[in-house]
């Protein structure tokens, strides 16, 4: 069975469910759009360097049972654990807090589906995997903060792939009221070495003065196929901060789209992507400077070893009238072997006059002058190289919330020997 026939079967099963008519219509429209266009191919500019043959070949296997949870194990705050796109209630907890509405999406739809109707709507000509998600998602996150509300502890969304269903579609909806604040950790991991597929679509809106910090951790199994799409609209004087870590997976593709819609909005995107032998990682980020007086900064780093392959496409688009835009982007890559490969492409498009924009991308190897400096202080060559890789990697995740620093550093440290 191919992926397409698998999804076809998933869709047939879905449409027989007891869902509101409006949602069935949304799914139908999305499915027919997806089915008409199929998977993106090499002529699609957005997928130029990333082949989906692994997904075309993908043969769903009997999913594993969920027995263990190798996560960064938060001890406080809300925790939603999903396996194969479905909630695992016994591992999840949803503490009540004033001004905070948090639930799994299936429950929120069952309780007050009509309220979610406008939020689930997608554009007609959607990206293929977003359309697929619309047609097939079963569950996900619904988070809404009232004006002025604040999540005291980070909210963790953990998704385990390869369990319950071998192709899973997860939907995340985040809505922050004026001057509210949230820190959301989205951790994707997987069980076993078999291939599985995860397709995530996340949509966040930030009302004026709101602040969303988002931490995305991808620590998949070696044959996992992860397609993620994170979209955020940043309102007046609101701020979006993203930290992304790609640390394992056969084929990882993550899109991050930020719309700076109103004056004074800010975003900061930081990330570290890694790929070892047999792995492919692709980050596409797009920052739309629509309103004047907005700021964006982006720092991505890549560590690619073995026969690993990485793609970084960072687009900054300054629209007409977006004067006083202040934007800086850098992408630095270290190739750890002579068979590793990276395509790093900053894209700057500016249609306003009074702006400050910079961008740069580098690809290189460890600096031998740095290696010698450490060796000249008695540090063995292998240890020196490891220290320098760690330094390079950790530098990418500066500004991370202190409560998460140790756990994320441990994920990075565990990853480096695999490259």
């Amino acid at each position: 069975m191919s992926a397409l026939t698998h999804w076809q079967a998933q869709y047939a099963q879905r449409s027989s469910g007891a869902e509101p008519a409006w949602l069935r219509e949304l799914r139908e429209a999305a499915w027919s759009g997806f089915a008409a266009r199929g998977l993106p191919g090499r002529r699609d500019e957005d997928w130029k360097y990333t082949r989906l043959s692994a997904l075309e070949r993908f043969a769903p296997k009997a999913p594993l049972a969920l027995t263990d949870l190798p996560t960064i194990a938060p001890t406080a705050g809300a925790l939603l654990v999903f396996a194969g796109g479905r909630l695992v209630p016994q591992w999840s907890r949803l503490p009540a807090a004033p001004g905070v509405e948090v639930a799994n999406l299936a429950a929120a739809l069952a309780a007050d589906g009509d309220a979610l109707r406008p939020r689930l709507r997608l554009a007609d000509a959607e990206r293929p995997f977003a359309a697929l998600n619309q047609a097939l998602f079963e569950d996900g996150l619904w988070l809404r903060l009232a004006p002025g509300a604040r999540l005291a502890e980070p909210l963790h969304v953990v998704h385990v792939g390869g369990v319950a269903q071998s192709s899973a579609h997860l939907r995340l909806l985040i809505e922050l009221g004026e001057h509210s604040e949230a820190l959301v950790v989205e951790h994707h991991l997987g069980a076993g070495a078999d291939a599985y597929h995860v397709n995530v679509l996340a949509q966040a809106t930030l009302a004026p003065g709101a602040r969303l910090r988002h931490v995305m951790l991808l620590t998949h199994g070696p044959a996992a196929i992860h397609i993620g799409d994170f979209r955020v609209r940043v309102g007046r004087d609101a701020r979006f901060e993203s930290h992304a870590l790609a640390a394992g997976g056969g084929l990882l593709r993550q899109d991050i789209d930020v719309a700076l819609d109103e004056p004074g909005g800010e975003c900061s995107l930081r990330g570290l992507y890694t790929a070892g032998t047999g792995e492919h990682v692709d980050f596409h980020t797009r920052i739309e400077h629509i309103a004047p007086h907005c700021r964006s900064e982006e720092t991505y780093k890549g560590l690619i070893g073995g026969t690993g392959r990485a793609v970084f496409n960072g687009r900054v688009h300054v629209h007409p009238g977006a004067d006083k835009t202040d934007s800086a982007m850098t992408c630095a890559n270290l190739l750890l072997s002579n068979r590793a490969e990276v395509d790093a492409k900053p894209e700057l498009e500016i249609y306003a006059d009074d702006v400050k924009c910079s961008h740069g991308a580098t690809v290189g190897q460890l600096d031998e002058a740095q290696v010698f400096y450490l060796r000249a202080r008695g540090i063995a060559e292998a240890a020196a190289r490891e220290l320098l890789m760690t330094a390079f990697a950790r530098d990418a995740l500066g500004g991370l919330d202190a409560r998460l620093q140790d756990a994320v550093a441990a994920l990075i440290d565990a990853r480096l020997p695999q490259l």
Partner: protein
Amino acid sequence: MPVMLEISGLRVAVDGKEILRGLDLSIDAGEVHAVMGPNGSGKSTLANVIAGRDGYEVLAGSVRYRGQDLLAQSPEERARGGVFLGFQYPVEIPGLSTAVFLRAAVNARRAHRGEEPLDAMDFLGLVKGRMKELGIREDFLQRAINEGFSGGEKKRAEIFQMALLEPQLVLLDEIDSGLDIDALRVVSDGINRLRAPDRAMLLVTHYRRLLDYVPPDRIHVLSEGQIVRSGGPELAGELEQSGYGWLRAEAASA
């Protein structure tokens, strides 16, 4: 006094070009020697080849340190054994904290001497006092190695590392370049504090200025890869008077 460093007939090429052309030099424990000479005479090559930097091809000769064949050792083995190179241009390493780096370096040296590694607390106790002596800022340990440091701060940090590692053979490659007079004084005091009967030092410098603060036992003049003159501290004064121009004159008449 035992011989600390013994170099004989050393010939070294860089990119196929011979830079050191038969160099002999011997330094006893307890002594401070200075190697002076014009740009391109091979001063930095000498310091780097003793420390084991890549890219230097030894064509002939030997370098013995406390009786061992230094050229057979990796840079880290040399460092653990007590050889310290103070860099002319210390590198910046963003993302690597000075504390992590220094503790790794100190413990590598301790392991070589058969001593227990220092834990974070003991290490902190050791470094705090030394930092004060050299006027090093409080946040130094948390900062990334040399990142954003001024030229003077970098050189002070080199001297600080030297003090921590307690080397037996100190090589300082133009430690005085880029220093204003106050920084030069601090750096010189740091060097002088480490003068000891069981330690030898080799100062590589272009200028006499450093030698006013750190009076050497011997001065060697290097020209075109060979030591053309050696003498006592008074040689610095002569060089100040006549510059390096006489070297060319002498070479031409030879």
